[in-house]
């Protein structure tokens, strides 16, 4: 059992490592593919050679980044099998479909047209090349769609039923899966966050060119496109983020409570604007949850339910079984202790069903099936020892949420300032402060992006599939030492890869900042 726990921890660490590395590259790919497509469209529409050079410059950076995204992505996809094999069987009937569609619909589109994008300038017509660039952008977003549908399903499992004979879940409504509100919000939130990231990246790199006073025209034009993409991205991200919060309140109230450090909820619940999490605080005790709290009155009720006078349950409420209806009303429902008991009953009933099936006892099968149906909703709780095991890491989710929101707000201002600078206050583009802010924002946007995923994934712990399968039941039967080895292997390899990528990008950008890009087609 200890080895299993250890395997779970190392498997989680490995998945987190690969996912976080993957997400360093993917949002830039998503956003930059759109920006490059817009730039090339301007080139094709105006015929100005300058825009072709600009397009090629950003396309080169896109290519360097794209390779890393691909390299980390393959590990991530196959880790569902290598490290989460029990999960793969338990829900493979549902979860595998979006992954396969992702490959058939999106990956082939990317792989085919990215070659035209890089090497087709002199081989295909201008319009065909432009279409290819747009198809890469569409393919990138489509691939994001399907993997995010899969991820959303793990957070809010819908469109399925349990098959006790196979001891697994099977799909019974594909469209429920694809059109789940959680999936729709997650898709737009993640994709548009990629637009922000790429927009800020373009502003930042262009600021460096402005700082060096080389290729000023290129930098100004790039900022124009980057700032608008970033602004649209951040407005849409805020809108979908609001939608995500409402969905989280409905389907993952424990995540919402953890991200607020909220233990005992109330009507008209405030939102913590600033505070430090008391790490000694445990569910059920009387210690304060947050030190130095500065709150926004009614904030959390508005965020969760769009109504200042609604109740938001805290961790203690949820453990005790106080829940929220879709209408925002509170009801007394099943406590976590009862859920654990029901989960165990479901597992026991399933064992009885299996024994009865093997023995050909149809009456006993029917009886066991009734018990399974009555308790299956909380099947996953049967793998937990105590109610507190269903509480995610509060400090990590709390801080991740605040980092995401604070940097996100700053990035909104940055995008607005950049637009003002390119349109009405062009003198700002010559100011050192503008260059400094632009460059300094690059790491911030990545921190913001990573924080969003930390919130989403740490906040849903301990669940691999919400309420149905915790991570400790989702793993593969492999020794912890094996996973430990591959964890460190990937940590070293991906770090070396990231170092090389950054070095290549910096060297390339630096080279461009020393030369006249518009008159040097080899760049």
């Amino acid at each position, binding site marked *: 059992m200890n080895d*299993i726990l250890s395997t779970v921890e190392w498997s989680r660490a490995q998945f987190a490592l690969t996912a976080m590395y993957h997400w360093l590259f993917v949002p830039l790919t998503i956003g930059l593919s759109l920006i490059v497509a817009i730039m090339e469209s301007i080139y094709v529409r105006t015929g100005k050679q300058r825009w072709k050079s600009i397009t090629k410059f950003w*396309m080169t950076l896109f*290519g360097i980044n794209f*390779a*890393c995204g*691909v*390299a980390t992505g*393959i590990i991530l*996809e*196959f880790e*569902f*099998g*290598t*490290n989460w*094999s*029990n999960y*793969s*069987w*338990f829900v*493979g*009937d549902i979860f*595998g*479909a979006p*992954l*396969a569609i992702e*490959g*058939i*619909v999106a*990956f082939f589109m990317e*792989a*085919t047209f*990215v*070659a*035209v994008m890089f*090497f087709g300038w*002199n*081989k*295909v017509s201008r319009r065909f090349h432009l279409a*290819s660039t747009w198809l890469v952008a569409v393919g990138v977003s489509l691939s994001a769609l399907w993997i995010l549908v899969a991820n959303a399903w793990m957070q809010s499992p819908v469109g399925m039923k349990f098959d006790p004979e196979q*001891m697994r879940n099977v*799909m*019974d409504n*594909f469209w429920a899966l694809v059109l789940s509100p959680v999936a729709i919000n997650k898709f737009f939130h993640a994709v548009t966050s990629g637009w922000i990231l790429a927009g800020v990246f373009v502003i930042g790199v262009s600021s460096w060119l402005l700082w060096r006073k080389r290729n000023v025209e290129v930098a100004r034009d790039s900022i124009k496109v980057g700032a608008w993409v970033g602004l649209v991205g951040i407005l849409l991200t805020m809108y979908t983020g609001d939608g995500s919060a409402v969905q989280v309140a409905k389907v993952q109230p424990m995540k919402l409570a953890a991200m607020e450090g909220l233990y005992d909820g109330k009507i008209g619940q405030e939102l913590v604007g600033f505070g430090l999490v008391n790490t000694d605080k445990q569910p059920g005790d009387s210690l304060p949850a947050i030190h130095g709290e500065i709150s926004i009155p009614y904030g959390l009720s508005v965020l969760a339910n769009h109504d200042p006078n609604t109740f938001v349950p805290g961790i203690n409420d949820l453990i005790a079984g106080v829940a929220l209806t879709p209408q925002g009303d509170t009801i007394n429902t099943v406590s976590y202790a009862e859920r654990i008991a029901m989960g165990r009953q479901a597992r026991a009933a*399933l064992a009885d069903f*299996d024994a009865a099936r093997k023995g050909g006892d149809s009456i006993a099968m029917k009886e066991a099936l009734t018990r399974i149906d009555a308790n299956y909703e909380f099947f996953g709780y049967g793998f937990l020892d105590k109610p507190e095991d269903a509480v995610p890491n509060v400090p990590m989710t709390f801080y991740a949420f605040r980092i995401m929101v604070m940097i996100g707000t700053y990035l909104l201002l940055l995008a607005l300032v950049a637009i003002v600078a390119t349109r009405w206050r062009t003198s700002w583009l010559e100011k050192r402060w503008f260059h400094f802010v632009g460059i300094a924002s690059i790491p911030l946007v990545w921190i913001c992006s990573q924080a969003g995923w930390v919130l989403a994934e740490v906040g849903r712990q301990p669940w691999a599939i919400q309420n149905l399968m915790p991570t400790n*039941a989702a793993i*593969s*039967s*492999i020794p912890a030492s*094996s996973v430990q080895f*591959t964890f460190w292997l990937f940590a070293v390899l991906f770090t*070396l890869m990231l170092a*090389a*990528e950054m*070095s*290549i990008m*910096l*060297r*390339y950008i630096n080279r461009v900042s020393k030369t006249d890009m518009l008159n040097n087609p*080899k760049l």
Partner: protein
Amino acid sequence: MTELEMYQNYWWLLIAVLGAALVFMLFVLGGQSMLLSRLSEQHRQLMVNSLGRKWELTFTSLVVFGGAFFASFPLFYSTSFGGAYWLWMSILLCFVFQAVSYEFRRKRGNLYGRVSYDVLLFIGGILGCVLLGAAVGMFFFGAPFEVTRGNLVEGTNPVISQWAPTHGLEVITCWQCLLLGFTVFFLARTLAAMYFVNNIRTDEGFERRMRRACLGNGLVFAVLFVLFAVVLILAPGYRCAADGEVIQEANLYLNNLIGMWWWGVIFLVGVVLALYGIGVTAFTRTRAGIWFSGIGAALVVIVLFAIAGYGSTCYLASTTYPASSLTLANSSSSLFTLKTMSIVSLLVPFVLAYIVYVWRKMNAAPLTDSDVSKDSHQY
């Protein structure tokens, strides 16, 4: 045949087609394994840039192959990937290196030098082919695992499948699997040589060398393939009887070829096409050999999948607990999922059509020295 069986068979065929596409595209890996030969820098550049325009398709074929397996036969995905951990991790690493090596090798500031990336491409080219072939070899020669659905309700270890402690390393001791691995490797090198002949225009010496490489690698491939075919038709296998019992059957794959004779015919057509492609590339001036051999190899792969899975054959036999062996019937997704995915699969011809269209457009003019030196994006 029930509706469910029909869809299981359909999806196995799609898996076979994806596997065939992957094997064809392995010419990229085969080409990588030639990069450390004694070559002029100019020739090496041409080869890398020729392969580099296609590596994403090879990569994607593998990803889609895995994704399709996950969607249609999740118990295989769960058992094989979670069990043969080291084997699959090693294969994946080959592809991780591939993705970045092409893009980074000649970029300034790549930190580790061009040679490091070329060595990674070289190692990935060899290991990627051999290990993928060996992994597929398990379809015929089995693997040490046990599947117990009831584990889910056990308190101590809820994982459905358990693999031998070697976790995939045992493939090194399975000489039949390695034989298939090296067969795939030399096939990939043969196809790579043909692809270079087809795609690169430079001095006469290069073309002569590639035609010789095609002959040399092709001969080794042919010998290994014949050996593998003999081993395969003599090998016993497991079949699931009508009552659900898994029984061993002598010459199972030969019996399948005879019982499903149409696959035997396709197999022979594939072999003839593959050999014809090698012959015309080695001994004539034609540049189209890759298409004959590529299509031939793809047909053979489809047949190998067919005889591994159809006719209630255990496509992943358990050498330790035969009753745990995987068949199309006991490892597939539900009818609903297979049907839903089948609708999605109607897009496959469309996808193939645009791949072919773009391939023809991009390869209409062969790659020349000036392309490589003038192109703004180079590998």
